[in-house]
């Protein structure tokens, strides 16, 4: 009988994650998630034998577990997050169409909720959730929960607002596939508009089945709850067309779907050869109904602060207020302020961000010289990207920020203006921002 001997060098290497040979000598994982999504545990590999010869189980998770080679190299999806159960639907009994909003070409939280709702409707009936997009570059539809994907970007012109062309495309999908449900986001002027148009069009033939449920916020046991006017809810069977609010269902998080592209054969033929004369004439007739004349440049200071997409906010750390106003103009940002800046009289009260001011939802928020009081951080909780420019590297705003620059705010803003080709020092007359500020103050008072 051989005596079990421990090589102290190897043990030391095993304990040292930074050792170059650590990965060769680390033990295989005692626990992994198989390709089917089931957690597997190897009881023999669990724990480690310490120097005293006794097996120890380390539950703190501090020890690094080397992944088995087969799993690590199998798929890239294992690397990010827990693996998802793969779902394949080959022969669906029906289709549930989801028309996501796709702001900026990406799936929003609202869109993911819609897919969750669609999965809820499709569950148990073996139906396939189908994403209908007017954008060919969408990704992550698989993880959002789409089994099929119909790309209608050929039938519309890029990003322009042409609801009638989109409606015609959806109508073709309807006649070809006759899905069980259509799900739209009830948000104007996107899905709320398109869904109502589709409902009105389908109501020509069959008014009862095409009657949509709008502002749906819950679906349970085959019944949908939609918010009506005058503090009432309507409970009814889930209709064919559902316009759902945000957070109507939990987004898909545990399964991975295929998002298999589906093409509608007649879409191309009817568009080119005009097989049906009626559809061609109706398409040309409605083409002139609404014409998109493009975006209108909006003064960022005119946008209500709660809706502004890009905010440059100033706090106690800013001393050069003219430079700050100039930087906001150069960057095209709305102006915000912390409470201190407002109390000191440097900014209008209506510009205050935070618990006592406005709760903002900007997609980018730049905080210059704001240390980040709790009330201020509450006000910016919904912002997507936060940039902090501050002298103090230990302040709360720097901890919260996605990008923190430890520097003097005034100097950085001046350099930004210079770099963007519009240096501001001494150029603007001293009276101009003050007059603008006063005009703004009076406007907010009047409002």
């Amino acid at each position, binding site marked *: 009988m051989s005596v079990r001997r421990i090589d102290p060098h190897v043990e030391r290497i095993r304990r040292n994650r930074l050792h170059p040979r650590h990965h060769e000598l680390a033990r295989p994982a005692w626990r992994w998630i198989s390709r089917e999504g089931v*957690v597997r545990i190897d009881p023999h590999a669990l724990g480690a034998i310490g120097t005293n010869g006794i097996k120890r189980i380390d539950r*703190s*998770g501090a020890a690094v577990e080397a992944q088995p080679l087969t799993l690590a190299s199998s798929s890239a999806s294992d690397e990010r997050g*827990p693996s998802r159960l793969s779902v394949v639907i080959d022969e669906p009994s029906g289709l549930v169409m989801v028309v996501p909003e796709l*702001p*900026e070409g990406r799936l929003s939280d609202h869109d993911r909720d819609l897919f969750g709702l669609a999965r809820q409707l499709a569950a148990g009936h073996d139906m396939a959730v189908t994403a209908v997009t007017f954008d060919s570059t969408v990704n992550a539809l698989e993880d959002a929960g789409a089994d099929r994907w119909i790309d209608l970007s050929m039938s519309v012109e890029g990003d322009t*607002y042409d609801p009638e062309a989109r409606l015609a495309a959806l109508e073709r999908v309807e006649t070809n596939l006759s899905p069980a449900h259509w799900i739209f986001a009830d*948000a*104007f*002027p996107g899905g*709320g*508009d398109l869904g*109502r148009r589709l409902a*009105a069009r389908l*109501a*020509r033939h069959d008014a*009862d089945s095409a*009657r949509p449920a709008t*502002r749906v916020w*819950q679906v349970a046991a085959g019944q949908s709850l939609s*918010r*009506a*006017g*005058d*503090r*009432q*809810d*309507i*409970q*009814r069977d889930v209709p064919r067309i559902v316009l759902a609010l945000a*957070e109507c269902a939990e987004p898909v998080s545990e399964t991975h779907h295929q998002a298999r592209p589906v093409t509608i054969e007649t879409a191309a033929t009817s568009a080119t050869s005009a097989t049906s004369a009626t559809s061609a004439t109706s398409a040309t007739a409605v083409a*002139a*109904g*609404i*014409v*998109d*004349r*493009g*975006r209108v440049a909006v003064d960022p200071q*005119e946008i209500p602060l709660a*809706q*502004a*997409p890009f905010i440059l906010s100033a706090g106690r750390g800013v001393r050069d207020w003219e430079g700050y106003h100039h930087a906001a103009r150069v*960057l*095209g940002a709305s102006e915000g302020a912390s409470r201190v800046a407002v109390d000191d009289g440097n900014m209008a009260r209506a510009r205050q961000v935070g618990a006592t001011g406005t709760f903002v939802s900007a*997609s980018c928020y730049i905080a210059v010289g704001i240390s980040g009081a709790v009330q201020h*951080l509450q006000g910016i909780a919904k912002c997507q990207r936060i*940039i902090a*420019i501050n002298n103090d*590297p230990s302040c709360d705003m720097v*901890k*919260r920020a*996605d*990008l*923190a620059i*430890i*520097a*003097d705010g005034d100097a*950085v803003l001046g*350099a930004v203006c210079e770099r963007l080709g519009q240096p501001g020092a001494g150029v603007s007359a001293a009276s101009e921002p003050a007059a603008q500020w006063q005009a703004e103050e009076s406007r907010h008072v009047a409002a």
Partner: protein
Amino acid sequence: MSPRESNANVKTVALVSSGRHPVSGRAGRAREDARAVEMGLALVGAELSLVHAGDPEDASLQACLREYLGMYHGLGDDGDGVLSLLSMNAEDDAVPLLAAWLEQTDAGLVLTGQRAECGEGSGMVAYLLAERLGWAVATSVAAIERCDRDSVTVLQALPQGQRRRLEVRLPCLIAVDGVAPPPRQSAFGPARRGRIDIVTDLVPASDALVDVGRRDWRWQPARTRPKRLKVVKSSNARDRFRAAAAKSSASGGQVLTDLTPEQAAEKLIDYLREEKILGKETAPSVSEKSSATDQ
């Protein structure tokens, strides 16, 4: 040029409905409908005609509708408002009546709110009317810029305070958004002087007006929507504990120290360009490559 001067005698109509105050529940003007009336008054003055389909016996409804008539003041011409009340029962479908009335009066531009504050409030009326009459419909309109003989130019409200300009062919329906200019106050005198015409016999009685689709619905007082909880999906107790114990504010962003203001500005602009917040109107900076490798 104000929209009123550019208007070319298009018969303008506002569809109005009774509203509820969001907090007190008191009956009154609907917020979006009042904005639509305001828009119409700014466009054609007292020539704007109002229409509502409802029960003429209902006194509280008439009191609500009088508040819209009270908006006919300060227009320069001393016309009093006229509201056509299309007679129907409260459960009936308003769309055939409204469509018949609009065809009969030869309306060109119809303004309405996006969604009613009483009843179903589905916001479908404008779409159903447009489909039935073959008109164009534009939604979430914030302002009317210009209106001439055969088209109207409007500004559409987009999320995050953005605007889009649309040209809509007449005749059309316009659904007014809540971000449109606020309505003028309703005054007592004009409200008294205004006239409510009750219109009957618009459609033959043989047409079934009763809205059968909503018979099976159950109405219940609105419940508060449950708040979504933040659920940490992890098979690992350690991760769940860490997520529960972690401070929510610590997101682990990038911290840049010891920079000159010029370098800091460069980093900031590069970041903003990368996130597509700043356009590429100026030439890309020299150090774009180096900043890409940093991240």
